[in-house]
């Protein structure tokens, strides 16, 4: 279509720019983009905002990062650096420029690594490798502590310092392994597996801080699986407080740093052991004192018992019993004698009453026949001329019946 030469003016620059701006800013895709490129024309004026151009082989894009977002930036930016930026497309109307308002910047590759991290994490999580029920208790007082880390790194030095300070009684076995680079994952797996053969009480898997790429071996599926299937409980202390690796999720315990891992592995310290020993010592002495007291009081009561049953006491009591019996016997005897005396007196009186001689005193006589000495008490018993014998109170004489 040919533009008309005499058409009337429809737009001001501002209105048109505003129109373009609206067009771009209602586009959902453009308001949430990740874009990759190389930094050029980097400028950080005193305002604190950051301005640069993001380029690739075929195009360039103006970028701004406001001061508040720039303050959170961990990565030191410089020209030529390959980065990935997140932000939204907008229009700077005064300059007539569209540009990217950035809110996050990260090094190239981190995004894909992160995607891989999330994918692997979801997969292993679904398999149950990170389940809480799988976590085992870390022994409070380990005799043997296994360590998997680089034999030259700061992590090892930190760990040994912490263990030496807290529990030098322990024995440490280092299974050295590179902790970054392509070699690292298989070597870490090998170290974990060979330490398992020696059955230490706990294994520390550690590495000092570094970039996300440096820590990547601890997100390797092989290593994560080795951690999960270790028979010995594993404490994972990789990087710094803010770094999370998949090994952290698979381990029985996550420590923020290697030093913290060593501390978590040595919950019982020398101070506590010494305290425990003192307690035992005290208990030992106290129970022995109790036992001695028990025995001595048993002895005292035996002594009392002995006195109670001693022969002199027995003899005394027998003597008393004898006295007692003798007394009772005497009383009984006296009583019986009295009784008998009484009885004899009775007999005597009765005998006296019956004495025939007393009757003679009163003038009666006892008459017997001389021939047969039979007592005569009836007239018929005698006839004339019978010779009889008469007894009176003071003597006797013979007579003849007329």
């Amino acid at each position, binding site marked *: 279509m040919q533009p008309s030469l005499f058409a009337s003016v429809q737009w001001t620059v501002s209105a048109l720019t505003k129109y373009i701006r609206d067009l771009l800013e209602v586009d959902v895709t453009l308001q949430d983009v990740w874009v990759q490129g190389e930094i050029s024309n980097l400028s950080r004026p005193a305002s604190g905002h950051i301005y640069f151009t993001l380029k690739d082989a075929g195009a360039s894009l103006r970028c701004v990062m406001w001061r508040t977002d720039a303050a959170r930036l961990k990565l030191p930016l410089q020209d030529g650096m390959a980065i990935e930026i997140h932000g939204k497309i907008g229009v700077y109307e005064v300059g007539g420029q569209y540009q990217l308002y950035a809110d996050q910047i990260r090094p190239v590759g981190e995004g894909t690594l992160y995607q891989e991290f999330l994918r692997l994490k979801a997969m292993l999580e679904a398999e149950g490798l990170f389940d809480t029920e799988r976590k085992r208790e870390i022994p409070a007082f380990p005799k043997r502590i296994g360590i998997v880390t680089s034999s030259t790194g700061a992590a090892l030095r930190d760990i040994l310092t912490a263990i030496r300070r807290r529990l030098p009684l322990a024995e440490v076995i280092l299974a050295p392994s590179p902790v970054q680079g392509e070699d690292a994952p298989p070597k870490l797996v090998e170290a974990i597996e*060979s330490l398992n*053969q*020696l059955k230490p009480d706990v294994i520390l898997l550690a590495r000092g801080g570094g970039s996300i790429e440096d820590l990547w071996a601890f997100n390797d599926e092989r290593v994560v699986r080795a951690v999960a299937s270790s028979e010995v409980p594993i404490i994972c202390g990789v990087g710094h407080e803010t770094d999370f690796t998949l090994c952290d999720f698979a381990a029985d315990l996550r420590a923020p740093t290697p030093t913290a891992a060593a501390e978590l592995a040595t919950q019982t310290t020398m101070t506590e052991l*010494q305290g*425990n*020993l003192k307690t*035992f010592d005290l208990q*030992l002495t106290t*129970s022995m004192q109790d036992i001695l007291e028990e025995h001595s009081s048993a002895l005292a009561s035996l002594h009392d018992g002995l006195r109670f049953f001693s022969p002199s006491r027995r003899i005394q009591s027998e003597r008393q019993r004898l006295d007692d019996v003798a007394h009772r016997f005497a009383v009984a005897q006296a009583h019986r004698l009295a009784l008998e005396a009484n009885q004899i007196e009775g007999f005597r009186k009765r005998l006296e009453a019956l004495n025939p001689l007393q009757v003679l005193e009163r003038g009666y006589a006892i008459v017997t026949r001389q021939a047969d000495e039979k007592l005569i008490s009836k007239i018929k018993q005698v006839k004339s001329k019978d010779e009889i014998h008469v007894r009176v109170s003071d003597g006797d004489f013979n007579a003849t019946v007329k």
Partner: protein
Amino acid sequence: MPKSSSAKSVESLSYEQALKELESIVAALENEQRSLDESMALYERGQALVKRCAKILDKAELKVKQLSGETLTDFEEAE
């Protein structure tokens, strides 16, 4: 009554062994009836175990070994 390791000389016991025996001796003295002679013998053994443990704690020095393949060697720490 703890007897198992009482035949062993106290000096040959590890910290764990000594502590374990000490623990059982304390429990035995606290809870079981026995003759005075036996109690005294246990107490003396207990005292020797306490001394043994204290000595081990006092002299404890971290032993660091390195596992290479299947062999353990002393690990030389860089200063």
